[in-house]
């Protein structure tokens, strides 16, 4: 119950602080209607309650107006209230003249209080909005949201938060002295479309920011050259401020806010821009280092796999062939030994047998290093073979109808192989279910057994190595299950290279806060 009330409170607060155009219109309407309602309500009692009561009621209305629409509607409301008060509640009644000195003082006091209240609430609302915006952006950063979404949200917040700003754009610097626009507000942005590419002229705001590494402003576009400035003029943009996004000491991009009025943007715009763009810098730095880490992990795994494939190929093409040939030669030699040398014949036979056994051993090892069937036939036949050779009965549910990228197939195969091995070694299970589902962007595997449970991920380096391999591809590996309830190993591996969000961990973190 308390949680629902708190959530409701947050939602109301958010809605009120949003200052949408609708709420602003409502504020202006209320600025007039509010005091009017107070008048209607108190009119029958004016001889008893007097001006004070009216002014108190009007103050309440001003507070609401200030919340909905800001300072100006609030001041207007105060003016309306004073007029109505002078007419209806200050003797002589029904005229605008005010006899009593005290009433005049009351009006002055009311005007002051009303203005102060209006301004204070306006500031409060502004701060609340900023907080909400920061929280929203920080959430995106924490959930490692897709870059596009992050850019779009921050640009929108910048556009909505900063006074005087009519449009905002975020651009990324490209190595050839040009920029690409990655986000814009408000949408649809036709002048500088998202994704468009522009060569920088040295007088463009982006160029200035990039050169100096500091915020800059242009208050007048009339005499600027270059395609960007020309386009800006065409769109009716008259003044802009740009702030750099600094990542690892270099200017990664620039946030530009614009207005259609010359010299319109207030002097503190640069500072206010910075607080939001700093968050962006952090997010981008995070994302870049994360993706670098992921890439290097993937490279390491791929290199190891390539080595294994090579070893398997060499073993197969080289060593195994040679051993089989040798065995044949031995057999042929055995055939040539005269029958009156049985011991010699037997010795050859033993040697040939030993060689053949060695070949079979090699085959097993080779299969463990890298199963040839995986490269040739793909996941489905490879997992079917794993299932057949499993010591525990396996129920298969494979929905894999196409070949997947090599590292994905290898990772998936090893997850199933290792999981099945563990089941055979520790679980004492009667059956294992292996489910593989291929979606558009993710392949999901689950190996569930009905054994003893209590799998300890730290025991047996096999499972940890699996986690590394799966995570290097941007996937997730979860091991669950309790004593007596069996164990389940679930892996989700992205097919398209985009990392899989660990939704469970995030939800759990949310609940805790």
């Amino acid at each position, binding site marked *: 119950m308390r949680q629902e009330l708190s959530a409701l409170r947050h939602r109301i607060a958010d809605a009120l602080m949003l200052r949408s155009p609708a709420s602003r219109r409502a504020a202006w309407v209320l600025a007039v209607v509010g005091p009017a309602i107070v008048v209607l309500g108190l009119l029958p009692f004016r001889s008893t309650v007097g001006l004070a009561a009216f002014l108190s009621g009007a103050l309440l209305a001003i507070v609401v107006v200030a919340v909905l629409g800001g300072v100006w509607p609030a001041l207007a409301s105060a003016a309306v209230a004073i007029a109505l008060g002078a007419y209806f509640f200050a003797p002589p009644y029904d005229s605008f003249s005010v006899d009593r000195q005290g009433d005049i003082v009351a009006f002055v006091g009311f005007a002051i209080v009303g203005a102060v209240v209006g301004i204070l609430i306006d500031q409060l609302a502004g701060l609340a909005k900023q907080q909400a915006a920061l929280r929203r952006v920080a959430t995106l950063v924490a959930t490692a949201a897709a870059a596009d979404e992050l850019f779009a949200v921050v640009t929108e917040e910048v556009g909505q938060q900063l006074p005087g700003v009519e449009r905002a754009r975020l651009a990324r610097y490209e190595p050839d002295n040009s920029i690409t626009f990655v986000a814009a507000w408000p949408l649809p942005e036709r002048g500088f479309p998202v994704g468009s590419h522009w060569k920088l002229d040295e007088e463009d705001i982006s160029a200035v920011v990039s050169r100096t590494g500091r915020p800059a402003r242009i208050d007048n576009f009339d005499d600027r050259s270059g395609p960007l400035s020309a386009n800006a003029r065409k769109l009716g943009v008259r003044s802009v401020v740009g702030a750099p996004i600094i990542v690892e000491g270099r200017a990664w991009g620039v946030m530009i806010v614009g207005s259609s009025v010359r010299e319109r943007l207030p002097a503190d715009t640069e500072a206010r821009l910075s607080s939001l763009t700093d968050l962006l810098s952090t997010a981008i730095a995070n994302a870049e280092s994360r993706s670098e880490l992921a890439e290097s992990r993937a490279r390491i795994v791929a290199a190891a796999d390539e080595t294994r494939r090579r070893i398997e190929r060499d073993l*197969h093409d080289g060593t195994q062939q040679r051993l089989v040939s040798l065995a044949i030669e031995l057999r042929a030699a055995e055939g040539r030994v005269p029958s009156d040398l049985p011991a010699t014949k037997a010795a050859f036979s033993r040697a040939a047998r030993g060689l*053949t056994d060695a070949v079979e051993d090699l085959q097993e090892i080779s299969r463990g290093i890298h199963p040839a*069937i995986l490269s040739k036939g793909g996941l489905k036949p490879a997992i079917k*073979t794993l299932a057949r050779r499993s010591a525990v009965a396996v129920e298969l549910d494979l929905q894999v109808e196409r070949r997947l990228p090599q590292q994905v197939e290898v990772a998936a195969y090893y997850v199933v192989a290792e999981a099945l091995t563990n089941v055979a070694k520790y679980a004492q299970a009667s*059956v294992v279910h292996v489910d593989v589902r291929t979606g558009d962007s993710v392949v999901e595997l689950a190996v569930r057994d009905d054994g003893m449970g209590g799998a300890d991920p730290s025991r047996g380096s096999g499972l940890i190595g699996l986690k590394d391999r799966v995570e290097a591809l941007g996937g997730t590996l979860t091991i669950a299950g309790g004593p007596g309830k069996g164990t389940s190993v679930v892996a989700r591996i992205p097919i398209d290279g985009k990392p899989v969000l660990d939704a469970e961990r995030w939800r759990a973190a949310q609940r805790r806060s």
Partner: protein
Amino acid sequence: MIADDDVLLREGLASLLGSSGFDVVGQAGDGVELLTLVRSAMPDVAIVDIRMPPGHATEGLEAARVIREELPDIAIVVLSAHVEVDEAMELLAGGERLGYLLKSRVTDIGEFIDTVERITAGAAVVDPALVRELVSARRRRDPLDVLSPREREVLGLMAEGASNSGIAARIFVSEGTVEKHVRSILGKLDLPESGTDHRRVLAVLKFLEAR
């Protein structure tokens, strides 16, 4: 006719077959060479490695298919370092006089020669190692549970491509007993009675693979 890109193995096989009464009429190093030689020499049986240049994947299967289309009277034995059930089924769909064996099987000379002769005479053969892997797969509700141990043994031999008389010789019973077992097995597993041995092999393989 022997086709394998490993010269040592090829020579070894050639001498082995030569001293066992076979007449080796040609040796090829890849699929293209094999087809050329087969068309000109028209051997009774071709022994082909599944993995040959240029791709080192399943060129042998492809060559077998072509030979089977053009010259259906030629028996073909495909050798592979790893036996995979999909490849076995693909090969044996070509009819009789086909064999799919583990390369290491050739070191057991007597059995290998025997198998080649059986294939040339008309049998379809699958390497016992593959059959063993298929039969020993553990299932929770195994359809094979309805079979007696003896019937399971017979089923395995059926999958290897043995004829009824061959099975009888292997497990030391009369051919009549084998026929009884076979009928019982086909009935219990709901497999069709097929006229030819090779269709039987295919049917059993398919059944074992799918369960």
